[in-house]
């Protein structure tokens, strides 16, 4: 776990398949509204959401379950279409990687084949690339294992490697650690931060866990009642220690804000 930073530095020098200067994209949500037609009429999920996310930043969308956080992520990824409003990216042709709450691996494919699956349009892809990203998430021993032979944390690592392997400018993460035990989740959070700092990706992260949001992000958006009702910059230095005085006092402030709606 601890050594993967060094391994990766070696891998980049030797392999050189990753871009020399990783790019990160900006996301602009402009007056975004989403409603669903249900049997009981129109259900409005959120209305006039305006968010601008800087390239390379780590932004977390915090909200209770059912608040529409995942819907916003699905709109950004293009799986859903907004009712009105616009989503723009900079540059226009950003690549987006998606990490889901459950890893959503193809159970009939090995780890390596699961990575290969998303490279349909990438003629440059080789197993070498796949292995490089599995190494990045510390799965060097498991290239040819099936998901059923892995632990929950390892499966989620494959999901993260898959999303990173397309060299995305933007990484969308939908409660990726909420199905894991806390110790594993904590390990993966630390690794995610270290990967983010190495690769310079824009990360748009969704969670219902305030501590997770504070530990990871530059900026926290709170979603409730169909609105972004708070937008906090996290003023803490990295690496963050969750029992430092600054952390705890900011945590209290965030909790108060969170419950203000």
């Amino acid at each position, binding site marked *: 776990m601890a050594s993967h930073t060094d391994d990766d530095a070696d891998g980049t020098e030797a392999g050189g398949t990753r871009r020399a200067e990783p790019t990160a994209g900006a996301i602009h949500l402009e007056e975004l509204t989403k409603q669903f037609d249900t049997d009981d009429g129109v259900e409005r999920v959120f209305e006039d959401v305006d968010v601008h996310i800087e390239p390379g930043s780590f932004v977390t969308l915090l909200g209770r379950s059912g608040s529409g956080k995942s819907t916003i992520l*699905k709109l950004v*990824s*293009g*799986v859903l279409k907004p009712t009105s409003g616009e989503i723009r990216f900079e540059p226009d042709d950003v690549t*987006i990687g*998606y990490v*889901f709450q*459950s890893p*959503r691996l*193809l*159970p*009939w*494919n*090995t780890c390596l084949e699961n990575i290969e*699956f*998303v490279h*349909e*349009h990438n003629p440059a892809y080789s197993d070498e690339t796949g292995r490089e990203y599995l190494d990045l998430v510390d799965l060097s*021993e498991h290239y040819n*294992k*099936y998901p*059923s*032979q892995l632990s929950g944390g390892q499966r989620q690592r494959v999901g993260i490697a898959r999303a990173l392997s*397309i060299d995305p400018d933007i990484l969308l993460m939908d409660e990726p650690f909420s199905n894991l035990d806390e110790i594993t989740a904590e390990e993966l959070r630390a690794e995610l931060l270290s990967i983010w700092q190495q690769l310079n990706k824009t990360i748009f992260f969704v969670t219902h866990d305030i501590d997770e949001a504070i530990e990871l992000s530059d900026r926290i958006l709170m979603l409730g009642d169909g609105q972004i009702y708070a937008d906090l910059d996290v003023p803490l230095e990295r690496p963050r220690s969750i029992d430092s005085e600054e952390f705890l006092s900011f945590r209290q402030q965030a909790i108060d804000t969170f419950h203000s709606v």
Partner: protein
Amino acid sequence: MSAETIRSGLGDRLSDVDVNQWPARIVGIVLFFVGWYAVASVFPNELMPYPIETLRVVYDLVGSGKVLPEVTATLTRIFWGFLASMLLGIQMGVFMGLDDYQRKFLTPHIVIGLSAPLIAWSVIATLIFGFSIYAPILATILTAAPFIAITVWKGVEDIDTDLLEMSNSFGITRRRTIFKVVLPSVAPELFTAFRFGLSLSWKIVTITEIFASNSGIGYQIIRAYGFVRFDEAWAWAVIFMGIVLILEYGVIKPVQWRVLRYRPDTEISLVG
């Protein structure tokens, strides 16, 4: 033992599963012959010959060159009937899985198809087509297609929509999604449909041959019976079983094992 060793041990077993099942299969076949021997010793010999005698008749039949044309005739009918049943059944099953309206429309047809006795379809198909090859084909479709449809329907219904959404969010084309996500996820049901659809096809084709044919294994069985040559009727039945077993262990099982080996071994041994 560390967790790592346990897991890699599991991985090793995963690849050995098929080999380990051979002793059990051989014991099963031996027990079948023992049971046959026991039953044959109770009944008069002209009604139920002993296995060895029957195998001798099989040997003579094969040596006489009579077997191949009859087997070819039956296999040809089964091939076309089964192929048509698979195409139609898979089509119906996919429609039923995707669309509620079509499911409601097709369900009564399927229920009737599943519950009508095999012999009814044989007779009806023969009345329509007489001695032509279309009679067994139609009878096979009426018998096997509903079963295939209902099995495939379950498979299509159980496709993990989360995986489809994943595929969509990574911009994967429809074609690749069908081959890499949809087909593998209905593969277990396709195997069930294939195996039971094929065995239904065997049964219905041989029954139809009794009515509406002057060739094929079913015709030879009823002919031997008509001439009171029970040992020959048994011999044809054994030839029939032999071909079914060769298909099962020579073709279906190996393919199934290759396709489904990603599953944990406990699951494989439960269905295998």
